[in-house]
């Protein structure tokens, strides 16, 4: 049985859903195939203990792009919006931050923080302009690319001489030195340093950590929690896509993307073959090339690039069912509705990072915590709570492998270290679950368990994201596209890769 579609999207992650929805909106007959029983990929809410559920992959909404939402006509109800960030201190002298102000630091630091955020925003604004468009090709000689490059140059010039100079310099800088030059509070520096390197394989001293900081800001900078968790975002996108005419089939793993005579012709599943001249992979580039298509259909230079794509995750996810909220001096119960950071200083982040360079876990990991049950009672039984934590750093390729013992050890270490800041935490634990990068890979099918589907470093940025020769969402195989986090502008629940991929596909059709 062969059914023909205008486009088939492999994987119902949020980017896949965005892309499918936009293609359907343009009148295309679109099929989305999802291996798992539910849509959403790594933006999913699921139970992890009796009566407790959690956003199992991404746990906060940073960056869903308004243009994506507008184009699709989707609204995401939020339970808490613009969540404050709180850098926790063991002594109870926490630092409370929002997008402009920091409280709990010296006046000097408070002023420096406001200046720093304004300064950062200038460049984040420039980067923001680059999010919602496919990166141009370099040296293609095409009119279109030349215009896009000129536009990029113009955006840069529009910063003004002084800011442009600053920007050209800060691209290569590290966040550590910048923070050291500006602030005295270790806790404040630790918080910003952690945010700058979260989800990447870099420490605050690594050059390039400045750009990852700006990148985080450029997608909005504020954090919210959707009602019902991240899974609700995916559900809303899926619902909208279906309303636009997209067919979504869950429990239908794609066994392979079918290539015939040098072009994509469809996909094979246990339920048979689905035909289409266009297949859009929401999977990461490695899975797409090696798992779905097969290396032989690409040229070896390209395969080598994908092979060397740095995509080993360093973040573990910790889910804890709590009997009650922990009591932290200096923190009111409602403060648990914010985003809590545990990183004593920039050095602490650097030291937490060092071991992963050698395939070992941090002995003193650093954390980003959220307690979704504080603002949304759908996560836990009344009076009980859920804590979701990003635990850094835990390497994908742990020396000796992620045995049960290794997993238990890191799990214990994470809880023990957390307890230094969250007193009596372990006494409150009803159940807890640790997902290492290997587990994240298994659950979400992301190669290396990397939530950006590929390290967000300067060498895998824009023109060369995910790899040279595929930065425009088109793979070097006729009919094959990428729309996942591996592409520009990268991971996080932004919808931008899916949006851009849809634009590229539609633009190509129009130009024919």
């Amino acid at each position: 049985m062969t059914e023909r579609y205008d486009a088939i999207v492999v994987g119902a992650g949020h980017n896949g859903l965005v892309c499918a929805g936009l293609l359907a909106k343009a009148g295309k007959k679109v099929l989305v195939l999802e291996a798992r029983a539910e849509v959403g990929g790594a933006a999913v809410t699921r139970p992890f203990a009796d009566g407790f559920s959690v956003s199992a992959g991404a746990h906060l909404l940073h960056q869903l792009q308004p243009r994506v939402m507008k184009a699709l006509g989707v609204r995401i109800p939020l339970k808490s919006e613009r969540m404050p960030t709180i850098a926790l201190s063991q002594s109870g002298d926490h630092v409370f931050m929002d997008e402009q102000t920091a409280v709990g630091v010296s006046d000097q630091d408070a002023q420096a923080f406001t200046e720093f955020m304004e300064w950062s925003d200038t460049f984040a604004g420039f980067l923001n302009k680059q999010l919602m468009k496919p990166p141009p090709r370099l040296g293609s000689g095409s009119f279109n690319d030349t215009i896009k490059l000129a536009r990029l140059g113009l955006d840069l010039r529009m910063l003004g001489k002084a800011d442009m100079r600053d920007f050209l310099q800060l691209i290569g800088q590290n966040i550590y030195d910048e923070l050291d030059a500006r602030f005295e509070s270790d806790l404040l520096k630790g918080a910003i340093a952690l945010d700058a390197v979260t989800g990447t394989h870099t420490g605050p001293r690594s050059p390039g950590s400045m750009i990852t900081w700006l990148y985080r800001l450029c997608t909005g900078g504020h954090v919210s929690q959707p009602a019902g968790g991240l899974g609700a975002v995916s559900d809303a996108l899926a619902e909208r896509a279906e309303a636009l005419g997209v067919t979504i089939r869950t429990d239908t793993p794609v066994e392979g993307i079918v290539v015939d005579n040098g072009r994509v012709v469809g996909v094979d599943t246990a339920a048979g073959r689905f035909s289409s001249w266009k297949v859009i992979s929401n999977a990461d580039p490695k899975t797409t090339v090696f798992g779905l298509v097969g290396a032989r259909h690409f040229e070896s230079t390209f395969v080598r690039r994908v092979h060397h794509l740095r995509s080993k995750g360093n973040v573990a996810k910790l889910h804890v069912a709590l009997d009650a909220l922990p009591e932290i001096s200096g923190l009111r119960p409602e403060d648990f509705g914010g985003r809590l950071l545990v990183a004593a200083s920039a050095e602490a982040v650097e030291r937490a990072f060092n071991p992963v360079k050698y395939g070992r876990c941090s002995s003193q990991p650093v954390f980003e915590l959220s307690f979704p049950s504080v603002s949304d009672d759908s996560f836990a039984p009344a009076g009980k709570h859920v804590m979701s934590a990003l635990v850094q750093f835990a390497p994908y390729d742990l020396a000796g492998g992620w045995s049960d013992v290794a997993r238990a050890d890191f799990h214990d270490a994470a809880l023990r270290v957390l307890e230094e800041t969250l007193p009596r935490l372990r006494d409150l634990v009803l159940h807890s679950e640790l997902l290492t990068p290997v587990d994240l890979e298994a659950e979400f099918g992301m190669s290396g368990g990397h939530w950006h589907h590929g390290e967000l470093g300067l060498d895998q940025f824009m023109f060369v994201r995910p790899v040279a020769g595929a930065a425009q969402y088109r793979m070097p195989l006729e009919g094959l596209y990428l729309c996942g986090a591996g592409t520009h502008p990268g991971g996080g629940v932004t919808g931008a890769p899916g949006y851009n991929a849809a634009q590229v596909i539609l633009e190509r059709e129009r130009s024919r």
Partner: protein
Amino acid sequence: MTEVHQGRLETPFYGRFKAIDTLNEWHTWNGYTVCNSPYCADLEYFAIRNATAVFDLSPMNKYRITGPDAGAYLNRLVTRNVSVLGPGRVGYSVWCDNDGKVIDDGTIFHLDEGDYRVCAAGRHAAWFADAAIGFDVEIDDETADVAALAVQGPTSWSVLTRAGFEGLESLKPFGLVHMELGGRPVMVSRTGFTGDLGYELWMSPDDAGVIWDRIFEAGELTGIRAIGTDALELSRIEAGYLAPGLEFLPADETVRTGRSRSPFELGLDWLVDFTKPNFNGRRALAEEQRRGSTWRLVRLDIEGNKPAHNAYVFPRESRSRSDIGFVTSAAWSPVCKKNVALGTVRQPHGRPGTTLWVEIYYQREMHWQRKMARATVVEGPFWAPDRRRLTPPEPY
């Protein structure tokens, strides 16, 4: 602990060459020391064209490709369709980089079902390994494990038969056969670099000496000679074959943009098969075919008798116009009595049958002279006797 060998390596035939060598002129080839010419390059050359010449090609790089994906792997690696190359057949091909530029040329021996050997001038362990990502293949570098001898010339078949290689009469050009000589396994292929009747023998280094002796015994009465690279080079130019480093540079080693060449630019269009599945360089080559190539390899028949080494090529006799290319290999062909050359010129120049001009530089008693000479672009090899293809070959 001893250090790795600090000098040049010796091939399995080194001792045999050393024994007959009178000139003591050697050079380095792929880390081995090989003879330029054991006694007289002119006479050695005529052994190729008149009788039987024996050349040591052991330094060639040899890679064994095995495993379930071996055929598919090779088919993605090279431009030619390997799937039509059955066991017992040999295919000449080139392999290209992502830009469709030639990395190297070489011969692919389909030894047995799914068991291949690739033989090439350059070293490719890294390129082959990179190309193997995603394939279930094993690649072994067996350069040092296989000794190889080229036995070329009009009497080569007779000599080999007399030496005990029976049944070679049915071996067609680009065929290979596994044989035994006194219990020693030898793979014989009807291949060569001379453009004449000839065979190549592939064996264990341990057997090399014995087999050499058997062949020379058998050929004693029919003028067999061991030859060096100088004589081979001359026959190579006459046959119009390409030499890496001269007619093209390995694309994976060129640093400057535009210094490498595509198969089309080397006149190897017949090796590029767009009907087969994806292969390295396919997209760029398809684009080049559509858009046209920049360079063209030309075989030049040049007036006069002065070899046009390193000559610039001009479209007209007047040098006032800028050059369009240069000569890459040149020689006076003793067998054709022609002044021949290979060169590279910018398209659209150099179509077969057209006339170009070369500026020849030559030295006569210290003084350098230069001379414009008319060069006719010819198609195909300068020397291609029917006997090279004749099966069975003529006996002597």
